[in-house]
């Protein structure tokens, strides 16, 4: 590691090391501060949340969270949360079902011009989603698919499929082809080959792909806002509804923001390395 550079004993080297460690800590705290403030505010009462200067030591209350769960309005957050969860989960599954075979055809036994196909997949990510929004809206309106989770599942799948194909290809191309051939010469059936040779290499890739697809679907706002309403509204759309023009709302907005971010935060913390693989389309492992 970089620390072994300076002769370990020398005083200047040690103090420099300490200073850089301190700087790293300061940066970490600076970046974390807004999130910490969000959590603290969510635990304050509405009047305490909106003071200037801030009331850091104000007494803690779960009022904001009670509001999020519909204490005064009677509006439950569960339908939008469940909508978000099912749209994200179903589109992630659909992405896997479509991307794994495709990645197989692009890596282990590559079709001709496989790079053109890869290029096509990635190019769809460069096109602003908003350009296709209107026709999708019109088609949905005429086929009665507006305000339907199914439509979101299809759109989220198309949003994440290119990422997944790139990622899965990069993982599948690590499968040792010689071993695959040797195994099939030795008479190993396809199930054996898949479970013994392919699966161990590819399993982390599937996990990373699922994580990133789930997060992107969970976070999506534009499509959900335009294409859903009362029935299929997702958590991000629900969250925007907490801002009111009258009265204080800061604590409950923060409570709602914490609750809605929680699944992503937990998944991301638990799988930091998978996050990197996913974000870099599998290029960084």
């Amino acid at each position, binding site marked *: *590691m*970089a620390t072994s*550079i300076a002769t370990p004993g020398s005083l200047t080297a040690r103090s420099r090391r300490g200073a850089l*460690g301190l*700087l*790293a*800590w300061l*940066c*970490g705290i600076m*970046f974390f501060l*807004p999130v910490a*403030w*969000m959590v603290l505010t969510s635990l304050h009462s509405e009047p305490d949340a*909106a*003071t200037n*200067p*801030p009331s850091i030591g104000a007494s803690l209350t779960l009022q904001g969270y009670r509001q999020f769960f519909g204490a005064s309005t009677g509006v439950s957050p569960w339908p939008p949360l469940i909508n978000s969860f099912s749209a994200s989960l179903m589109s992630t599954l659909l992405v*896997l*079902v*479509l991307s*794994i*075979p495709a990645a*197989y*055809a692009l890596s282990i036994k590559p079709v*001709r011009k496989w*790079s053109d*196909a890869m290029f096509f*997949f990635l190019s769809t*990510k460069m*096109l*602003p989603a*908003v*350009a*296709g929004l*209107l026709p999708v*809206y*019109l*088609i949905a309106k005429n086929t009665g698919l507006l305000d339907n989770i199914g439509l979101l599942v299809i759109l989220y799948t198309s949003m994440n*499929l290119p990422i997944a194909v790139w990622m899965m290809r*990069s993982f599948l191309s690590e499968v040792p082809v010689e071993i695959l051939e040797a195994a*099939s010469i030795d008479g190993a059936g*396809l199930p054996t080959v*898949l479970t013994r040779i392919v699966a161990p290499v590819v399993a982390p890739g599937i996990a990373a792909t699922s994580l990133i697809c789930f997060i992107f679907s969970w*976070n999506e*706002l*534009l499509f959900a806002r335009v294409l859903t309403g009362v029935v299929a509204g997702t958590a*991000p759309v629900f*969250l925007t509804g907490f*801002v009111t023009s009258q009265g204080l709302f*800061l604590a409950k907005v*923060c409570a*709602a*923001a914490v609750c809605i971010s929680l699944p992503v935060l937990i998944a991301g*913390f638990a799988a*930091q390395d998978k*996050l990197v693989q996913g*974000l*870099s389309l599998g*290029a*960084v492992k």
Partner: protein
Amino acid sequence: MTLTHSLTKRARAPQAAHPAAPPKRSRGAWARRAPLLPALIFMIVVTQLPFVGTVTISFMRWNALDPNNKAFAGLQNYKDAVTDPQLRSSLLTTVSLTATVVLVSLILGLGLALLLDRRFRGRGLVRTMLITPFLVVPVASALLWKHALYNATYGLINGSLTWLWSVFGSDNAPQPDWLSSIPLMSVETSLIWQWTPFMMLILLAGLQSRPMDAVEAARVDGATTWQIFRYLTFPHLRRYLELASLLGTIYVVQNFDAVFTLTGGGLGTANLPYTVYETFYQGHDYGQASAEGVIVVLSSLLVGSFALRTVSSLLREETR
């Protein structure tokens, strides 16, 4: 379960075709292509067909508020779009917003990655704290910045100013209204906060994949820390820097959540996605919105085809 099953089923065809010699592809070619087709067809149907619709509508006079007045309009929508100062300004906003956010978060991300590449007490915890902004749902973080941090009367920034001034016995601390005085910079700051962790994660992975024996050898030969960074670390990182900036651009250029939430596209912060959204969703001018959509796609193709070549060569180098 469904997953393994479908993999087994689809993978069988290419396996069977395997004995055929590679140069001659006839029946085997289709068997090889078969696993690719569902994904390919899905993408064409869901992303390319709507665009055909967009192009068609862009040549029509069609406002949803006046549904009977629907007719072929020729290039009128394009004329209106090109001469519309709002579209031109949103194009510029998109460019400056994307460039600023990507560049600043790349530099900050590099600094943080270099800091985190050294061993120090609590490194894991600092890394976790640093990636947190990226894991907050984007709408939630936009709402957080707008109401809990930027708000002129009770936001944390102005609150801290009040507190800081009062420490020195003054009670007229500056209380700027951040979102109306520096709207674009406010949007950019919140996005930089959100995207720096992304850059840091990719660059940190790059730093940790660098061959340490070369670094050690250089050190033994008396190279300074700066020389090592300049001649060993940086060339190695270059690919990661390019990858991070290109991926960052792909995501930031399409940003909708921050602009929509923080400023509602006002005060010169409307970027292209927001402008198209507004023409369609608030103006209900379908023809105009489609023409704008087509223009957006054409301009991103221009930039995109260059970026794509770089990205795909980068990724291919990595995987093959």
